[in-house]
Protein backbone atom coordinates (compact mmCIF):
# COMPACT_ATOMS: atom_id res chain seq x y z
CA UNK A 1 0.00 0.00 0.00
CA UNK A 2 2.79 2.27 0.90
CA UNK A 3 4.35 1.66 -2.49
CA UNK A 4 1.11 2.24 -4.38
CA UNK A 5 0.43 5.51 -2.65
CA UNK A 6 3.91 6.71 -3.34
CA UNK A 7 3.69 5.74 -6.98
CA UNK A 8 0.24 7.26 -7.33
CA UNK A 9 1.21 10.52 -5.66
CA UNK A 10 4.54 10.47 -7.35
CA UNK A 11 6.24 11.74 -4.20
CA UNK A 12 9.28 10.65 -2.33
CA UNK A 13 9.16 7.70 0.02
CA UNK A 14 7.99 8.64 3.51
CA UNK A 15 7.31 6.19 6.29
CA UNK A 16 4.56 7.66 8.46
CA UNK A 17 6.05 5.97 11.52
CA UNK A 18 9.31 7.89 11.25
CA UNK A 19 8.94 11.06 13.27
CA UNK A 20 10.15 14.51 12.50
CA UNK A 21 12.68 15.32 15.22
CA UNK A 22 11.87 19.02 15.18
CA UNK A 23 8.21 18.30 15.70
CA UNK A 24 9.04 16.01 18.58
CA UNK A 25 11.06 18.83 20.10
CA UNK A 26 8.20 21.30 19.68
CA UNK A 27 5.73 18.89 21.27
CA UNK A 28 8.12 18.15 24.13
CA UNK A 29 8.79 21.81 24.86
CA UNK A 30 5.15 22.78 24.36
CA UNK A 31 3.96 20.07 26.66
CA UNK A 32 6.62 20.95 29.24
CA UNK A 33 5.49 24.58 29.21
CA UNK A 34 1.85 23.55 29.56
CA UNK A 35 2.70 21.10 32.33
CA UNK A 36 4.62 23.79 34.18
CA UNK A 37 1.71 26.23 33.95
CA UNK A 38 -0.72 23.55 35.08
CA UNK A 39 1.41 22.46 38.04
CA UNK A 40 2.29 25.98 39.08
CA UNK A 41 -0.98 27.83 38.56
CA UNK A 42 -4.00 25.97 37.22
CA UNK A 43 -4.16 23.04 39.63
CA UNK A 44 -3.36 25.06 42.79
CA UNK A 45 -5.92 27.70 41.84
CA UNK A 46 -8.67 25.17 41.20
CA UNK A 47 -7.80 23.15 44.28
CA UNK A 48 -7.79 26.29 46.40
CA UNK A 49 -11.24 27.21 45.11
CA UNK A 50 -12.49 23.67 45.72
CA UNK A 51 -11.06 23.65 49.23
CA UNK A 52 -12.53 27.05 50.00
CA UNK A 53 -15.89 25.98 48.70
CA UNK A 54 -15.83 22.76 50.72
CA UNK A 55 -14.76 24.80 53.73
CA UNK A 56 -17.56 27.29 53.21
CA UNK A 57 -20.17 24.54 52.93
CA UNK A 58 -18.85 22.48 55.82
CA UNK A 59 -18.25 25.63 57.87
CA UNK A 60 -21.85 26.70 57.28
CA UNK A 61 -23.10 23.30 58.37
CA UNK A 62 -20.87 23.34 61.42
CA UNK A 63 -22.04 26.83 62.28
CA UNK A 64 -25.68 25.81 61.99
CA UNK A 65 -25.07 22.74 64.12
CA UNK A 66 -23.33 24.86 66.73
CA UNK A 67 -26.21 27.34 66.80
CA UNK A 68 -28.66 24.45 67.13
CA UNK A 69 -26.69 22.99 70.01
CA UNK A 70 -26.50 26.37 71.70
CA UNK A 71 -30.22 26.92 71.30
CA UNK A 72 -31.10 23.53 72.75
CA UNK A 73 -28.64 24.10 75.60
CA UNK A 74 -30.27 27.45 76.35
CA UNK A 75 -33.70 25.83 76.23
CA UNK A 76 -32.53 23.15 78.61
CA UNK A 77 -31.14 25.80 80.92
CA UNK A 78 -34.38 27.77 80.90
CA UNK A 79 -36.39 24.65 81.62
CA UNK A 80 -34.06 23.84 84.48
CA UNK A 81 -34.36 27.38 85.83
CA UNK A 82 -38.14 27.21 85.54
CA UNK A 83 -38.23 23.96 87.47
CA UNK A 84 -35.90 25.41 90.06
CA UNK A 85 -38.04 28.52 90.40
CA UNK A 86 -41.18 26.43 90.80
CA UNK A 87 -39.55 24.34 93.47
CA UNK A 88 -38.31 27.48 95.18
CA UNK A 89 -41.79 29.02 95.14
CA UNK A 90 -43.30 25.84 96.54
CA UNK A 91 -40.71 25.73 99.25
CA UNK A 92 -41.30 29.38 100.19
CA UNK A 93 -45.07 28.82 100.25
CA UNK A 94 -44.69 25.78 102.47
CA UNK A 95 -42.37 27.69 104.76
CA UNK A 96 -44.77 30.62 105.00
CA UNK A 97 -47.63 28.30 105.72
CA UNK A 98 -45.62 26.60 108.43
CA UNK A 99 -44.53 29.90 109.88
CA UNK A 100 -48.06 31.25 109.90
CA UNK A 101 -49.31 28.21 111.74
CA UNK A 102 -46.45 28.54 114.16
CA UNK A 103 -47.21 32.21 114.78
CA UNK A 104 -50.89 31.44 115.27
CA UNK A 105 -50.13 28.68 117.75
CA UNK A 106 -47.70 30.94 119.58
CA UNK A 107 -50.26 33.74 119.81
CA UNK A 108 -52.94 31.35 121.02
CA UNK A 109 -50.63 29.98 123.64
CA UNK A 110 -49.61 33.47 124.69
CA UNK A 111 -53.21 34.61 124.96
CA UNK A 112 -54.13 31.54 126.99
CA UNK A 113 -51.21 32.14 129.30
CA UNK A 114 -52.16 35.81 129.70
CA UNK A 115 -55.76 35.02 130.46
CA UNK A 116 -54.67 32.39 132.96
CA UNK A 117 -52.37 34.90 134.57
CA UNK A 118 -55.06 37.56 134.79
CA UNK A 119 -57.54 35.08 136.22
CA UNK A 120 -55.03 33.92 138.79
CA UNK A 121 -54.27 37.54 139.73
CA UNK A 122 -57.96 38.32 140.12
CA UNK A 123 -58.44 35.22 142.22
CA UNK A 124 -55.56 36.22 144.44
CA UNK A 125 -56.87 39.79 144.77
CA UNK A 126 -60.36 38.60 145.65
CA UNK A 127 -58.95 36.16 148.14
CA UNK A 128 -56.80 38.76 149.84
CA UNK A 129 -59.62 41.33 149.92
CA UNK A 130 -61.97 38.80 151.34
CA UNK A 131 -59.36 37.94 153.92
CA UNK A 132 -58.96 41.58 154.76
CA UNK A 133 -62.71 42.04 154.98
CA UNK A 134 -63.03 39.03 157.23
CA UNK A 135 -60.29 40.37 159.45
CA UNK A 136 -61.77 43.86 159.50
CA UNK A 137 -65.26 42.52 160.08
CA UNK A 138 -64.08 40.32 162.86
CA UNK A 139 -62.47 43.24 164.78
CA UNK A 140 -65.38 45.56 164.07
CA UNK A 141 -67.97 43.01 165.12
CA UNK A 142 -65.99 42.48 168.35
CA UNK A 143 -65.77 46.18 169.04
CA UNK A 144 -69.41 46.69 168.16
CA UNK A 145 -70.43 43.82 170.37
CA UNK A 146 -68.31 45.08 173.20
CA UNK A 147 -69.53 48.64 172.79
CA UNK A 148 -73.08 47.46 172.52
CA UNK A 149 -72.70 45.24 175.55
CA UNK A 150 -71.12 48.08 177.54
CA UNK A 151 -73.95 50.39 176.58
CA UNK A 152 -76.46 47.81 177.41
CA UNK A 153 -74.85 47.06 180.70
CA UNK A 154 -74.33 50.79 181.49
CA UNK A 155 -78.05 51.72 181.02
CA UNK A 156 -81.07 50.23 182.77
CA UNK A 157 -82.47 47.70 180.61
CA UNK A 158 -85.93 47.49 182.31
CA UNK A 159 -87.37 50.51 180.70
CA UNK A 160 -88.52 49.77 177.22
CA UNK A 161 -88.41 53.41 176.27
CA UNK A 162 -84.99 53.82 177.61
CA UNK A 163 -83.72 50.68 176.00
CA UNK A 164 -85.27 51.80 172.80
CA UNK A 165 -83.50 55.10 173.13
CA UNK A 166 -80.27 53.33 173.85
CA UNK A 167 -80.64 51.23 170.81
CA UNK A 168 -81.53 54.25 168.73
CA UNK A 169 -78.63 56.20 170.07
CA UNK A 170 -76.35 53.31 169.46
CA UNK A 171 -77.50 52.98 165.93
CA UNK A 172 -77.10 56.68 165.48
CA UNK A 173 -73.64 56.57 166.91
CA UNK A 174 -72.92 53.69 164.68
CA UNK A 175 -74.11 55.65 161.73
CA UNK A 176 -72.11 58.67 162.81
CA UNK A 177 -69.15 56.48 163.36
CA UNK A 178 -69.64 55.02 159.91
CA UNK A 179 -70.09 58.45 158.51
CA UNK A 180 -66.96 59.57 160.33
CA UNK A 181 -65.11 56.55 159.02
CA UNK A 182 -66.45 57.31 155.56
CA UNK A 183 -65.27 60.87 155.87
Amino acid at each position, binding site marked *: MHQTIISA*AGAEAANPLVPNVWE*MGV*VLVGFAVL*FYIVVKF*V*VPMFEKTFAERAEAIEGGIAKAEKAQAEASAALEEYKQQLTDARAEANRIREEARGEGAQILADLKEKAAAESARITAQAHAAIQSERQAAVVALRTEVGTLATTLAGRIVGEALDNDERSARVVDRFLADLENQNAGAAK
Partner: protein
Amino acid sequence: MIALALPAQDSGEFTPPGIEELHLPAILPWGAADGFSKQMLLVILSVVIIATFFLLAARKQQLVPGKLQFAGEMAYGFVRNGIAKDIIGSKDFMKYVPLLFSLFFFILVNNIYGAIPVIQLPSFSHVGGAYVLAAIVYVTWIAIGIKKNGLKYFKLATVPSGVPIYILPIVIPIEIISNFLVRPVTHSLRLFATMLAGHLIVMIAGSGIEFLVMQENVLLKGASVLVLAGSIAMYMLEALIMALQAYVFTLLTAIYIEGALHADSH
Protein backbone atom coordinates in the same frame (compact mmCIF):
# COMPACT_ATOMS: atom_id res chain seq x y z
CA MET B 1 -7.36 20.64 -1.61
CA ILE B 2 -6.41 22.50 -4.73
CA ALA B 3 -3.12 20.72 -4.67
CA LEU B 4 -4.99 17.45 -4.31
CA ALA B 5 -7.26 18.11 -7.24
CA LEU B 6 -4.53 18.93 -9.68
CA PRO B 7 -3.24 15.41 -10.33
CA ALA B 8 -6.81 14.14 -10.62
CA GLN B 9 -7.60 16.62 -13.34
CA ASP B 10 -4.40 15.87 -15.12
CA SER B 11 -4.80 12.16 -15.33
CA GLY B 12 -8.54 12.12 -15.82
CA GLU B 13 -9.03 9.41 -13.24
CA PHE B 14 -9.48 9.61 -9.48
CA THR B 15 -6.26 9.59 -7.52
CA PRO B 16 -6.84 9.30 -3.77
CA PRO B 17 -4.69 11.56 -1.61
CA GLY B 18 -2.01 9.73 0.34
CA ILE B 19 0.01 10.13 3.47
CA GLU B 20 2.24 12.50 1.56
CA GLU B 21 -0.53 15.07 1.70
CA LEU B 22 -0.10 15.27 5.49
CA HIS B 23 3.25 16.87 4.96
CA LEU B 24 2.21 20.34 4.04
CA PRO B 25 4.84 22.74 2.84
CA ALA B 26 6.76 24.34 5.67
CA ILE B 27 5.50 27.70 6.86
CA LEU B 28 8.99 28.96 7.46
CA PRO B 29 12.10 27.57 5.86
CA TRP B 30 14.29 26.02 8.48
CA GLY B 31 17.80 24.78 8.63
CA ALA B 32 16.43 21.29 9.09
CA ALA B 33 14.89 19.17 6.42
CA ASP B 34 11.22 20.05 6.87
CA GLY B 35 11.29 23.54 8.29
CA PHE B 36 8.65 24.97 10.56
CA SER B 37 5.52 22.96 9.84
CA LYS B 38 1.87 23.69 10.41
CA GLN B 39 1.80 21.03 13.10
CA MET B 40 4.45 22.87 15.10
CA LEU B 41 2.47 26.08 14.95
CA LEU B 42 -0.68 24.27 16.03
CA VAL B 43 1.07 22.62 18.99
CA ILE B 44 2.35 25.97 20.22
CA LEU B 45 -1.08 27.49 19.65
CA SER B 46 -2.68 24.69 21.69
CA VAL B 47 -0.47 25.47 24.68
CA VAL B 48 -1.49 29.12 24.45
CA ILE B 49 -5.18 28.23 24.14
CA ILE B 50 -5.24 25.79 27.07
CA ALA B 51 -3.15 27.94 29.38
CA THR B 52 -5.15 31.07 28.60
CA PHE B 53 -8.50 29.38 29.05
CA PHE B 54 -7.72 27.72 32.36
CA LEU B 55 -5.81 30.64 33.82
CA LEU B 56 -8.75 32.90 33.02
CA ALA B 57 -11.23 30.37 34.36
CA ALA B 58 -9.32 29.72 37.57
CA ARG B 59 -8.25 33.32 38.16
CA LYS B 60 -11.31 34.64 39.97
CA GLN B 61 -11.58 31.79 42.47
CA GLN B 62 -15.11 32.65 43.46
CA LEU B 63 -17.05 30.37 45.75
CA VAL B 64 -20.06 30.77 43.50
CA PRO B 65 -18.49 30.45 40.04
CA GLY B 66 -19.35 32.48 36.98
CA LYS B 67 -19.89 30.86 33.58
CA LEU B 68 -16.24 30.75 32.59
CA GLN B 69 -15.07 29.55 35.98
CA PHE B 70 -17.82 26.93 36.02
CA ALA B 71 -16.78 25.64 32.60
CA GLY B 72 -13.15 25.51 33.75
CA GLU B 73 -14.11 23.70 36.93
CA MET B 74 -16.23 21.22 35.01
CA ALA B 75 -13.32 20.46 32.69
CA TYR B 76 -10.83 20.27 35.51
CA GLY B 77 -13.18 18.20 37.66
CA PHE B 78 -13.74 15.79 34.77
CA VAL B 79 -10.06 14.85 34.67
CA ARG B 80 -9.54 15.20 38.42
CA ASN B 81 -12.51 13.14 39.57
CA GLY B 82 -13.60 11.27 36.47
CA ILE B 83 -10.17 9.93 35.55
CA ALA B 84 -7.57 10.48 38.26
CA LYS B 85 -9.66 9.85 41.36
CA ASP B 86 -11.70 6.99 39.93
CA ILE B 87 -8.74 5.07 38.51
CA ILE B 88 -5.87 5.82 40.89
CA GLY B 89 -7.98 5.91 44.04
CA SER B 90 -8.78 8.76 46.37
CA LYS B 91 -5.68 8.21 48.50
CA ASP B 92 -2.85 9.40 46.28
CA PHE B 93 -4.43 10.57 43.04
CA MET B 94 -3.78 14.26 43.64
CA LYS B 95 -0.08 14.02 42.75
CA TYR B 96 -0.91 12.83 39.23
CA VAL B 97 -3.76 15.21 38.45
CA PRO B 98 -1.49 17.82 36.81
CA LEU B 99 0.02 15.27 34.42
CA LEU B 100 -3.31 13.71 33.49
CA PHE B 101 -4.95 17.13 33.18
CA SER B 102 -2.18 18.45 30.92
CA LEU B 103 -2.21 15.30 28.80
CA PHE B 104 -5.96 15.27 28.34
CA PHE B 105 -6.36 18.87 27.25
CA PHE B 106 -3.14 18.94 25.25
CA ILE B 107 -4.31 15.96 23.21
CA LEU B 108 -7.93 17.10 23.10
CA VAL B 109 -7.15 20.51 21.67
CA ASN B 110 -4.58 19.15 19.24
CA ASN B 111 -7.07 16.54 18.03
CA ILE B 112 -10.03 18.90 17.76
CA TYR B 113 -7.96 20.97 15.33
CA GLY B 114 -8.86 18.26 12.85
CA ALA B 115 -12.55 19.11 13.18
CA ILE B 116 -12.16 22.85 12.84
CA PRO B 117 -12.56 24.15 9.29
CA VAL B 118 -9.53 25.97 7.85
CA ILE B 119 -7.21 24.42 10.49
CA GLN B 120 -8.40 20.90 9.64
CA LEU B 121 -5.24 19.16 10.77
CA PRO B 122 -4.86 17.13 13.96
CA SER B 123 -1.35 17.66 15.29
CA PHE B 124 -0.94 13.99 16.10
CA SER B 125 -1.46 12.96 12.48
CA HIS B 126 2.31 13.28 12.64
CA VAL B 127 3.68 10.52 14.78
CA GLY B 128 6.39 12.52 16.57
CA GLY B 129 4.11 14.17 19.10
CA ALA B 130 2.44 10.87 19.98
CA TYR B 131 5.86 9.29 20.53
CA VAL B 132 6.87 12.11 22.86
CA LEU B 133 3.73 11.92 24.97
CA ALA B 134 3.82 8.12 25.17
CA ALA B 135 7.49 8.28 26.14
CA ILE B 136 6.75 10.78 28.92
CA VAL B 137 4.04 8.47 30.26
CA TYR B 138 6.28 5.40 29.88
CA VAL B 139 9.09 6.97 31.87
CA THR B 140 6.64 8.28 34.44
CA TRP B 141 4.91 5.03 35.31
CA ILE B 142 8.14 3.04 35.41
CA ALA B 143 9.66 5.69 37.70
CA ILE B 144 6.59 5.55 39.95
CA GLY B 145 6.79 1.75 40.07
CA ILE B 146 10.48 1.76 41.03
CA LYS B 147 10.02 4.55 43.56
CA LYS B 148 7.14 2.71 45.17
CA ASN B 149 8.44 -0.85 45.14
CA GLY B 150 12.17 -0.60 44.46
CA LEU B 151 13.76 -2.84 41.85
CA LYS B 152 11.37 -5.55 42.99
CA TYR B 153 8.87 -3.67 40.85
CA PHE B 154 10.10 -5.39 37.69
CA LYS B 155 9.43 -8.75 39.28
CA LEU B 156 5.99 -7.63 40.44
CA ALA B 157 5.17 -6.26 37.01
CA THR B 158 6.25 -9.34 35.07
CA VAL B 159 5.55 -12.30 37.39
CA PRO B 160 1.82 -12.52 38.01
CA SER B 161 0.86 -14.01 41.34
CA GLY B 162 -1.20 -17.17 41.57
CA VAL B 163 0.11 -18.64 38.31
CA PRO B 164 1.41 -22.25 38.41
CA ILE B 165 5.20 -22.46 38.16
CA TYR B 166 5.22 -24.52 34.99
CA ILE B 167 3.33 -21.81 33.12
CA LEU B 168 5.65 -19.02 34.28
CA PRO B 169 8.24 -19.56 31.50
CA ILE B 170 5.53 -18.71 29.01
CA VAL B 171 3.80 -15.99 31.03
CA ILE B 172 6.87 -13.99 32.04
CA PRO B 173 8.09 -13.26 28.48
CA ILE B 174 4.55 -12.37 27.48
CA GLU B 175 4.25 -9.98 30.42
CA ILE B 176 7.62 -8.41 29.65
CA ILE B 177 6.73 -7.90 26.02
CA SER B 178 3.22 -6.63 26.68
CA ASN B 179 4.06 -4.33 29.57
CA PHE B 180 7.45 -2.93 28.69
CA LEU B 181 7.73 -3.22 24.93
CA VAL B 182 4.30 -3.17 23.36
CA ARG B 183 2.57 -0.85 25.79
CA PRO B 184 4.33 2.40 24.83
CA VAL B 185 4.10 1.52 21.14
CA THR B 186 0.37 0.88 21.25
CA HIS B 187 -0.12 3.88 23.49
CA SER B 188 1.44 6.23 20.94
CA LEU B 189 0.32 4.52 17.73
CA ARG B 190 -3.31 4.30 18.85
CA LEU B 191 -3.45 8.07 19.03
CA PHE B 192 -1.41 8.68 15.91
CA ALA B 193 -3.20 6.10 13.77
CA THR B 194 -6.71 7.22 14.62
CA MET B 195 -5.80 10.83 13.89
CA LEU B 196 -4.05 9.94 10.66
CA ALA B 197 -6.90 7.73 9.51
CA GLY B 198 -9.48 10.34 10.40
CA HIS B 199 -7.62 12.99 8.55
CA LEU B 200 -7.14 10.75 5.53
CA ILE B 201 -10.84 9.95 5.41
CA VAL B 202 -11.77 13.61 5.47
CA MET B 203 -9.20 14.33 2.76
CA ILE B 204 -10.34 11.47 0.56
CA ALA B 205 -13.95 12.51 0.92
CA GLY B 206 -13.03 16.08 0.05
CA SER B 207 -11.03 15.17 -2.97
CA GLY B 208 -13.66 12.66 -4.04
CA ILE B 209 -16.34 15.34 -3.97
CA GLU B 210 -14.11 17.65 -5.93
CA PHE B 211 -13.37 14.95 -8.48
CA LEU B 212 -17.05 14.12 -8.96
CA VAL B 213 -18.09 17.73 -9.30
CA MET B 214 -15.50 18.17 -12.05
CA GLN B 215 -17.01 15.37 -14.13
CA GLU B 216 -18.94 16.17 -17.33
CA ASN B 217 -21.62 13.58 -16.59
CA VAL B 218 -24.52 15.09 -14.63
CA LEU B 219 -25.23 11.88 -12.79
CA LEU B 220 -21.65 11.71 -11.56
CA LYS B 221 -21.85 15.35 -10.57
CA GLY B 222 -25.04 14.54 -8.61
CA ALA B 223 -23.34 11.63 -6.92
CA SER B 224 -21.05 14.10 -5.21
CA VAL B 225 -24.01 14.97 -2.95
CA LEU B 226 -23.98 11.41 -1.65
CA VAL B 227 -20.29 11.64 -0.91
CA LEU B 228 -20.87 14.95 0.81
CA ALA B 229 -23.54 13.39 3.04
CA GLY B 230 -21.24 10.49 3.79
CA SER B 231 -18.34 12.79 4.52
CA ILE B 232 -20.43 14.81 6.98
CA ALA B 233 -21.30 11.61 8.82
CA MET B 234 -17.62 10.65 8.82
CA TYR B 235 -16.76 14.13 10.05
CA MET B 236 -19.10 13.68 13.02
CA LEU B 237 -17.58 10.29 13.76
CA GLU B 238 -14.10 11.79 13.53
CA ALA B 239 -14.99 14.56 15.95
CA LEU B 240 -16.20 11.91 18.39
CA ILE B 241 -13.03 9.86 17.93
CA MET B 242 -10.86 12.94 18.46
CA ALA B 243 -12.39 13.56 21.88
CA LEU B 244 -12.49 9.86 22.64
CA GLN B 245 -8.80 9.34 21.86
CA ALA B 246 -7.81 12.14 24.22
CA TYR B 247 -9.86 10.41 26.89
CA VAL B 248 -8.47 6.96 26.07
CA PHE B 249 -4.88 8.17 26.15
CA THR B 250 -5.38 9.86 29.52
CA LEU B 251 -7.36 6.96 30.92
CA LEU B 252 -4.62 4.49 29.92
CA THR B 253 -2.03 6.76 31.51
CA ALA B 254 -4.02 6.71 34.74
CA ILE B 255 -4.34 2.92 34.54
CA TYR B 256 -0.58 2.51 33.98
CA ILE B 257 0.17 4.79 36.94
CA GLU B 258 -2.29 2.94 39.11
CA GLY B 259 -0.73 -0.37 38.08
CA ALA B 260 2.71 0.92 39.01
CA LEU B 261 1.48 2.28 42.35
CA HIS B 262 -0.25 -0.90 43.38
CA ALA B 263 1.96 -3.42 41.63
CA ASP B 264 2.00 -5.66 44.70
CA SER B 265 -1.76 -6.15 44.64
CA HIS B 266 -2.09 -6.98 40.97
